[in-house]
């Protein structure tokens, strides 16, 4: 093996041979750019919303659905938009999660080979459809033909039960434009994301896990339920975070189907508004500086809500993986 000698040789090798260090520093630099980006977004949103924060104060965030959004006289409150974003993402997640897990288990464990590839391909295709296409399909086909009947049914059944009444009070608009419609469209949009990632999670589980379970006499159902799902739980949670993130931030499709109305009720069957769609609708042409600053503050809230939900999900992943390793 060549060893550096004294003099010129040594000088050259000192100059050129640094091992992995420069490479590591380069990667560290690139990764820290991401952190810098997040901090700078947060800082900019904070700085540019200064006027709204001082003028509107905490009243901006007071949790009442009977709120105002009047840019002309500067009386603006954010709660209906926060509620709209959270409730539509929640509906979407509650519906999409079990379906996506079912799809991913079928694709990874049960499906025959000839069906697996075309089906996987279709699901990935669904994930790649632009949201505006979902929106157009939504207002012309899905809303009047599917959401309105579902809404009428829910108003007639759950809407009569005293406790659930506030969430399901009707009537749903005939066009179907409502929080429920936004939630359902979002569910359709995030199913492929969650399903495709969890399928990869299941496929990555070592074969030995399944064989050990079968060897102990477990049925396929028991293997899936008691071995594979716990084993892949952190990955599935990761997939869910991705899906939830898309649901929280989705703008175009939601704007097209949610109804964009500042109605006072909390009902899923009534038109609502979301933070992302408010920004998209009004930021291009604001009435006053206070108006644009208030919209920037809404963006800050959306950013923080997404960050907070991500943190909670991280904690959950950490908890479950620790429990799984212990048990």
């Amino acid at each position: 093996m060549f060893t550096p000698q004294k003099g010129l040789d040594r000088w050259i090798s000192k100059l050129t041979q640094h091992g992995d260090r420069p490479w590591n520093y380069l990667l560290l630099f690139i990764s820290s750019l991401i952190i810098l980006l997040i901090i700078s977004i947060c800082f900019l949103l904070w700085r540019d919303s200064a006027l709204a924060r001082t003028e509107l104060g905490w009243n901006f965030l007071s949790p009442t659905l009977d709120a105002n959004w009047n840019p002309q006289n500067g009386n603006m409150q954010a709660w209906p938009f926060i509620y709209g974003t959270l409730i539509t993402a929640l509906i979407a997640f509650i519906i999409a999660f079990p379906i996506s897990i079912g799809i991913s288990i079928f694709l990874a464990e049960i499906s025959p080979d000839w069906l697996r590839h075309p089906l996987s391909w279709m699901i990935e295709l669904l994930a790649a459809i632009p949201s505006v296409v979902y929106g157009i399909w939504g207002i012309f086909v899905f809303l009047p033909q599917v959401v309105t009947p579902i809404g009428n049914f829910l108003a007639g059944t759950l809407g009569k039960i005293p406790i659930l009444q506030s969430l399901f009070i009707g009537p749903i608009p005939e066009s179907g434009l409502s929080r429920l419609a936004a939630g359902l469209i979002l569910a359709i949009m995030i199913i492929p994301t969650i399903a495709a990632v969890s399928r990869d999670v299941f496929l990555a589980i070592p074969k030995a896990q399944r064989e050990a379970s079968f060897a102990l006499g477990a049925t396929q159902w028991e293997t899936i339920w008691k071995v594979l799902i716990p084993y892949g739980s952190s990955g599935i949670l990761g997939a869910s975070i991705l899906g939830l993130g898309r649901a929280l931030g989705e703008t175009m499709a939601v704007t097209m189907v949610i109804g964009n109305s500042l109605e006072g009720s909390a009902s899923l069957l009534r038109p609502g508004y979301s933070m992302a769609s408010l920004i998209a609708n009004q930021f291009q042409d604001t009435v006053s500086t206070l108006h644009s600053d208030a919209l920037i503050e809404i963006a800050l809230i959306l950013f923080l809500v997404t960050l907070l939900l991500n943190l909670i999900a991280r904690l959950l992943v950490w908890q479950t993986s620790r429990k799984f390793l212990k048990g």
Partner: protein
Amino acid sequence: MFKKLLNVVLVVLAGGLILSACQPVATPAPVAATQALKIEPTLAPGSVQLVAQGATFPLPVYDVWTKSYQFVDPAVNLTYAGTGSGAGKKAIVDGTVDFAGSDSVLKDEYKTVPDLQMLPTLAGAVVPIFNLQSTEKDANGNAVAITALVLDRQTLADIYQAKITKWNDPSITKLNPTLVGKLSDATITVVHRADSSGTTEIFTKALASFSADWLAKVGAGASTVEWPVDKNGNGIGGKGNPGVAVAVQNTTNSIGYVELAYAISNKIPFAKLINKAGKAVTADADSLASAMGDFANAFDDRLNATIVDGSGAGSWPISGYTYLIVRTQSMKDCVKAQKVVEYIKWTLTDTRAGKIASDLGYSLLPQAVLDKVMGKLNAITCNGAVVSK
């Protein structure tokens, strides 16, 4: 198999391109410069880049104009981006564009750039569209759509203020004697624009003029307002003209508002209005021209004018000018300045440019207004020298 499919796709795509290219307005034949224009023949094709942005209300016309103009003056490469009036005004103040489009008037901007000039280019109308079914069924038991409706100014404001929430309200039946007994007592679904827009600004300016109560509670017109119907629970916001139109078409017993141009090109029925003079009018080129005529002397030195709620017998009450905004003294590049002036003069005086606009449902300026605009254009200077030749 796959290759065949690809071929089919290619043929369909090519067909689509040819079809879209065949639309009459999209490709005007190359024409020589009109007499009013003196085009410098020495400039190389596409050598002058003009950038503009702003209002979306006149975008259908501006799109065709900018594309057509390269045949009038090949030296000019002009782009107009529909970014909204607010963004357009900001851009002309910042100096990032050569001219801007706006549906709303300038206010504080004059403090930063005192030589900004507003130039009315076109007038457009906003119309109330509706989806109504008669309570009487036809012989086969099917619901019959009502296609003609008359509203007055107060009624329209009251509907948008949720003071009138049923179609069979006496104030509506009184105006439509033929529909007595046919209007249902269903709640009116009131559709408005969700995105901020010049259309909303014209519409709400008109409502503020129609009803003192609207003016007091909601305020004068703006591109975004707080809709009383939303609070009442019978309001819905649609994104863009298509969003409003679809919401109305998918909801029986609903009302909404869109640009006249959009309603015409999509064959959506719209209501007649009883104007200030007490006459029932429909929105068209004549009633728009009448509205402009009512306010021909209302221009201030910046050429700002509101033309809602005119007093003429034939005037459509929900009308508005759309403007271009230029800098009259502080344009630095004199070639660009000259080309901007030439372009705006072409849009205002060329008969083909005029036909493009009127085919799309917009109205051209009456002569009295046109003279004022031309006067302002002729006074534009660059580095102290008059630009117009």
